Structures are given as C-alpha cells and as structure tokens.
C-alpha cells in the first residue's frame, strides 16, 4: 500500500459533550457569580464610602455659636478662626443651609425666624497640619463662652473599625463565591467528562490528538462558564440599578453613590464574568488532562 505523508490535521469537531451534561451549569454558575458580583461591588462601594467619609470627617469640624451672640462677637470669632494655623477654610452656613440641616427634625415647613437657631460654621482643616484644638477652644471660649466646637475625628476613627469589619465580611463572601464557582465547575466538568468517558477513549484509540481533545472540551466549558458569569453579573447589575431608586445606594455619601454605578462597577462585573469562565476553563483543562494521562 502506498502511503503519503500524513496531512496536517485540520480543525474538526469531535463528537464530545453532546449530551445533557453541563446544560444546567451556566445557571448554577450564574447564581454563584451573582453572589460574587454583589459581594465584589459591595466591597468596592463600602471601601470607597468609608475612605471618602473618613477623609471628609477627619478634616471637618463644626462650630456652633448661640443665636444670641452679637455680630461683633461673631466677627471676632471669624478673625480668630482665620488666623488659626491648620484651618484651611471657614464657611458660615446661611439660613437656607441651616434649614436644610434641621429639616429632618423640624420638618420642611417650620419657619426658623422665631427660633433660637444657633449659627453654624463649617471648618475644614489642613489634612497635613492639624490645628491646636485645645488652644483654639480656649480662644473661642474667651470670645463666646457658650460656643461649642464639634470635632468629628473621633467619629472617623470609630468608622475605621466598623468599615474594616464590613469589608472583611464582604471579602469573605466574595472569596466564598469564587471558591464555590471553582468547586461547582470542577464537579460539573468531572460529571460531564464521566458521561463522555467512552467517547473520549474511542477518539483516543482512533488517533485523536490529546491537545485537540483537551482544546475542544476546554472551549466548551469556557463558553458554559462564561455564559454563567455573564448571566450572574448581568443580574447583579440589574439588582444595583433596582436598588438605586429605593435609596439603598443613593443614600450613600456622594463619592460612593457615584462611584458604584460608574466604571468600577463595570470593571467588577466584567471581572466576575471573566473569572467564572476562566475558572470553568481551568477546571476543564485540569480534569481532561488528568483523564487523558490515564489513557495509554
């Protein structure tokens, strides 16, 4: 028999993975990806919120001056504040701004004219140079003894501990989600390949190349995993959109409120979808290589 040199293998589709195995996988992975995407989005939102809030609180102070303080004393107070080292800006809240602050307690329709509403002065400190608060308090008391300086830095420090706890919980949820994706993908791949065991061995005997078999199986599971990831990430995105009008996200401080629905969310969702597909791909590759290695 005359034999020509074997032709270079072409791309062909092997009859593998044609059964029901893997049909439910995208939906199972979608649920895991949904949890992971929400955890990842929540982690970013919480981190951004806490960071920006801490920054804002650690540089903010409020000076509350009784309504009875005379304009002359107010002027003296302002001069003291402007000349204090470490204070970057001084802003007296006008009546409208004060009314907005008090609205949650007094209601929007209560006129402030007849009430002894204190003057509120918003102070921003220089982040790199903290003022001498004890000295400032003494000076302020010498001008208006009833003036009260509220320092929010203690609150910011308290928030730091709380934020760390929340971030750890969300990171654990994210890690659990990704671990579950890997476990479910590995289990499903093994079950799927078990169904293909006879076909795999037959193709091996007919001379199919290991790489061609592994590549085709890996491609299939990448698509299944990727589909699950996209479905889960899409559902997470819809959840975020649904929560915004209800205020769950909208009530967060502005930096987080804008940040979570901006590009970080897209990046997180795309990363979770890609990670889900990649995990399924790697699980399939590892499983099929182990199985092929057992064949002679």
């Amino acid at each position: 028999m005359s034999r020509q040199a074997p032709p270079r293998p072409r791309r062909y589709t092997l009859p593998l993975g044609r059964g029901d195995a893997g049909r439910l996988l995208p939906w199972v992975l979608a649920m895991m990806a949904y949890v992971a995407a929400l955890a990842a989005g929540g982690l970013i939102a919480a981190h951004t919120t806490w960071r920006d809030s801490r920054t804002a609180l650690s540089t903010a102070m409020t000076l509350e001056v009784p309504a009875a303080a005379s304009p002359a004393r107010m002027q003296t107070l302002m001069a003291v504040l402007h000349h204090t080292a470490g204070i970057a800006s001084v802003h007296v809240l006008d009546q409208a701004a004060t009314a907005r602050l008090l609205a949650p307690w007094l209601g929007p329709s209560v006129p402030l004219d007849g009430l002894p509403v204190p003057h509120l002065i918003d102070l921003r400190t220089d982040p790199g140079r903290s003022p001498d608060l004890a000295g400032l308090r003494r000076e302020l008391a010498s001008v208006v003894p009833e003036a009260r300086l509220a320092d929010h830095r203690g609150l910011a420090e308290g928030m730091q501990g709380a934020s760390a706890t929340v971030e750890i919980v969300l990171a654990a949820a994210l890690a659990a989600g990704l671990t579950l994706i890997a476990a479910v993908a590995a289990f499903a791949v093994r079950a799927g390949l078990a169904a293909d065991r006879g076909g795999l061995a037959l193709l091996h005997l007919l001379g199919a190349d290991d790489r061609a078999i592994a590549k085709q199986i890996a491609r299939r599971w990448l698509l299944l995993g990727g589909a699950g990831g996209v479905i889960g990430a899409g559902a997470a995105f819809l959840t975020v959109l649904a929560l915004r009008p209800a205020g769950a996200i909208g009530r967060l401080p502005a930096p987080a409120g804008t940040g979570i629905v901006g590009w970080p969310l897209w990046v997180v969702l795309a990363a979770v979808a890609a990670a889900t597909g990649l995990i399924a791909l790697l699980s399939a590759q590892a499983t099929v290589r182990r199985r092929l290695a057992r064949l002679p």
Partner: protein
Amino acid sequence: MVRLENIAKWYDAAPVLADVSLTLDPGGFYFVTGASGAGKSTLLNIACLAERPSRGRMRLFGADPATLDRSRRAALRRRIGIVFQDARLFDDLSARDNVALPLRIAGTPPREVRDNVADLLAWVGLTKRADLPAGNLSAGERQRIAIARAIVGRPDLLVADEPTGHADDEVAWLLVHAFESVNRLGTTVLIATHDIGFASRFDHPRFHLGAGMLSEAAAEEEA
C-alpha cells in the same frame, strides 16, 4: 510491521499474558485463536496501542511506542484500523459521520472524506441507511459500519476482535473475505476469534493463545 517480544500483561497481579512473542509481516493476514478469556483481546489491545504491556518490548511500524511522546503515539494509532466486538459507534452520530471520523481526525480534505465514505458505505451495502443515527441501526448494520470505519483510512494494520462473533456462518465468511480484500491492498490484518474451526478453514497463519502463551496453531495441531 508489528513485533512483540516477551510481552506479559497482568491486572492486579492476575496474569493474562505470560510471555508472548509475535511478529506480523507487512501485508500478512493472521488469526489469533483461543478460548474465551485466554487473553486475545488483551493481545490485540496491546498491538493497537489501546493498552500498555506490563513487561516486554514492542515495535510498531519500526518505532518503539514506549519511547514516543503522546502526539506521536496518536499518529501511530491513526495508521491502525480497529474493529471491536461490540462495534463501539457514536450512537448519536449518523452512520456516515461515524465512518468519516478517522478521516476527519487525520485531517483529510473534506472532498476526499465525502468520496471515500460514500465508497465504503456502498461497499458495506449501507448507502441508504447512511444518514440514520448509528443508534437506530441493527447489530449487523452497526458491525458493518464499524468495519467501514476501520478501513476507510486505508490503515497499515487492521485488528479485529471477534468480528464474526455475532454473525452466522455465511456472514462470517463474507466478513473474512472483506478483510481479505483489504489485505490485498496491502493492509496487515490480525483477527482474533474463539472459533478455531472457523479460522482453520482459511489458508492464513494462525496463532493459538492458551495459558498466557502463544503458539503456532498449525504446528500444535500437527503435534
């Protein structure tokens, strides 16, 4: 073509082949006979690289498969046609696609695949059943498809494990004559059968497998 030297095979310490040496010349036609469980299938599996021997040396098409990487061993397998006792088809593939599979795996151009497969289907008399799923075919039809799949790539070596096991006497004769046709094109043929009487009706060398050892059947019968 095929050379087995002192091959032994055991499963979980249970010996199946003790010390088997066998040489198949290019273009030869051979029978291996033996009782059920004598190790015929194991011997054929080793010859077609479906199993590794536990001990011994082997050369196939001039190469030692044990020293080749997996890709080269796959290339050797593509030069072997195998007919299993139970056909082993992909039931959800059509008869035509089952026959075409070895050619597609080998990277044969589509036009050549189509023509060769059509010829083979006509040769085994299944042209009209070609587009049915293999799972819908009868046992006899499945076996003919398996034979067509084994020879469609014009293999250098054809091994058949009890191909006449489910066939009546007339069909068994036709099957062997079909293998002889393939053999005349240059393919070395090795057939395993438990039916010593049937194999002895043909003028081909026969080896007998018993107690894990191989002997030349003719000499044994004369003795």
